[in-house]
């Protein structure tokens, strides 16, 4: 009894210590986030975290214009939306035979894919630029979409295959006896059953591309094609002095979609959803 009581009280002390430690780290983590929220509402925002001198939505008003916010966000949407769609379709198609049929080529292919998931894509941006200049894909949306897709595909195929392996084959065999083709059974049986898995792949690909700066920064040149990840740079430089309140307001508008998407998927599938396929292998 006594031993248990000391163990319990020791556990209580430890819980308080853990809480205190975590809150301390969180305080350090929250400061930059607090800056962006408070500055967006502050008519006279600077670089320091401070309570706003009166709350205003003027900063949002100032940036909610076609050339500052809507065009770049639309560009981001076109770019990342198309690339995500292409990624998910290609990954689902590719994952199907890898998951369903035995072949001598499966293993080497999957190992190559796994290898490619961890290559530093940043490194090849210079040759990609040089290549795109030669084949006239530079400064085109479609070129950028294709490259984005290719860069996400290895991880997407890997993840998709792991999710697909979780759908039992017996369910399809019934459909096959009824004369369904494999394409039909993929579309009607396998994909609906792995809905959450498809959602994870979709959201993950979209979030990765939405935040990516280097790829559109290198491959797109015309200002009115720029997605938000690159156009945000315009707050510095061109417009003279930086209006930090507006920069903060834009940052919030630009970040909201990915945070919402993350929350949506994370709620449904629990914490480290995106890591399931990557880390466990």
């Amino acid at each position, binding site marked *: 009894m006594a031993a248990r009581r000391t163990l319990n009280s020791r556990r209580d002390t430890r819980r308080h210590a853990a809480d205190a430690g975590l809150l301390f780290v969180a305080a350090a983590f929250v400061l930059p986030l607090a800056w*962006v929220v408070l500055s967006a509402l502050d008519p006279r925002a600077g670089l320091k975290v401070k309570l706003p001198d009166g709350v205003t939505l003027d900063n949002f008003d100032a940036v909610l214009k076609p050339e500052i916010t809507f065009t770049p966000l639309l560009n981001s949407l076109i770019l990342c939306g198309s690339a995500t769609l292409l990624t998910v379709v290609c990954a689902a198609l590719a994952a199907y*035979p890898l998951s369903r049929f035995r072949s001598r080529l499966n293993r080497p292919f999957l190992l190559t894919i796994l290898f490619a998931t961890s290559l530093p894509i940043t490194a090849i941006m210079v040759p990609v630029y040089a290549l795109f200049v030669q084949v006239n894909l530079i400064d085109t949306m479609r070129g950028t979409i294709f490259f984005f897709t290719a*860069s996400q595909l290895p991880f997407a195929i890997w993840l998709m295959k792991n999710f697909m392996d979780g759908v039992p084959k017996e369910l399809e065999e019934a459909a096959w006896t009824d004369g369904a083709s494999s394409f039909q059974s993929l579309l009607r049986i396998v994909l609906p059953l792995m809905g959450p898995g498809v959602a994870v792949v979709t959201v993950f690909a979209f979030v990765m591309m939405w*935040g990516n700066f280097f790829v559109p920064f290198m491959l797109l040149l015309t200002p009115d094609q720029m997605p938000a990840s690159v156009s945000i740079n315009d707050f510095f430089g061109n417009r003279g002095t930086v209006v930090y309140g507006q920069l903060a307001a834009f940052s919030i508008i630009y970040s909201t979609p990915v945070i919402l998407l993350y929350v949506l998927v994370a709620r449904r599938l629990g914490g480290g959803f995106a890591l399931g396929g990557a880390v466990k292998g």
Partner: protein
Amino acid sequence: MRALSRALPVAPALVLLILFLAGPIAYCAYIAFTDLQLTGQAESSFTGFDNFRTAFRDEAFLNAVWLTLVFTVLSSLVGQNTLGLALASLMQRASKPVRTVVGGIVITAWVLPEVVAGFLLYAFFRREGTLNAVLDWLHLPSQNWLFTLPILAVSFANVWRGTAFSMLVYSAALNEIPKEITEAAEVDGAGGWRRMWHITLPMIRRSIGTNLMLNTLQTLSVFGLIWVMTRGGPGNRSQTLPLFMYEQAFQKSMIGYGTAVALLLLVVGSLFSLVYMRLLRTEV
């Protein structure tokens, strides 16, 4: 025939991967051995290992290698990894509301687009920014961090942005350790540090390996974060390899040389990637 029709669905992905990923990598391996430039020269010619010889004699390149090493060790191996493990193990004992709030904050930093993260930390480290305000308030000396210690500032930025990943990996790993084992050790009187060292760490060593590998690979290719915060400066005091590559290829128009640097980065990345696959020892 049947094999062919079964392999057909892989075709679209395969075509894209070959044209837009394998192609550029092969092209990278080719132009790294040429003197391709953006302007002035119509033809490029094959120059063998010249670019690499130049690199290893180039102080700016060696500086970039050193800074990449510092950046990776500080932010990935030490920062993200240790802090991620600390957060995950504290979370095991913390009360639920604290766990939710702290997890939410750390993960938000991770989900933010990299340019936004860059701006937030730029504001944080600037002379008139938050860090100095906090230091003033504590009566500690303040300084212009982005000027005096740029590589340290960008490393902290990378820790801020990347720790959530390690935290999630380690939380998952710690949850898989059976409660009985740690409880037994506790009853036997093993203290927190001893339990960590003798029980927890050996049991999660596979997760540690994969986490270190993925962190390192991610950190090797960081560009946007540093670009936004310092542009590699002042001078070249935070110019890691990706920024050096970009400067050589575009600001100095030496695509061949820039690509040689890219190829080296790619080779280092591939080596890490191979070790990672070994660690996973996956049954494909």
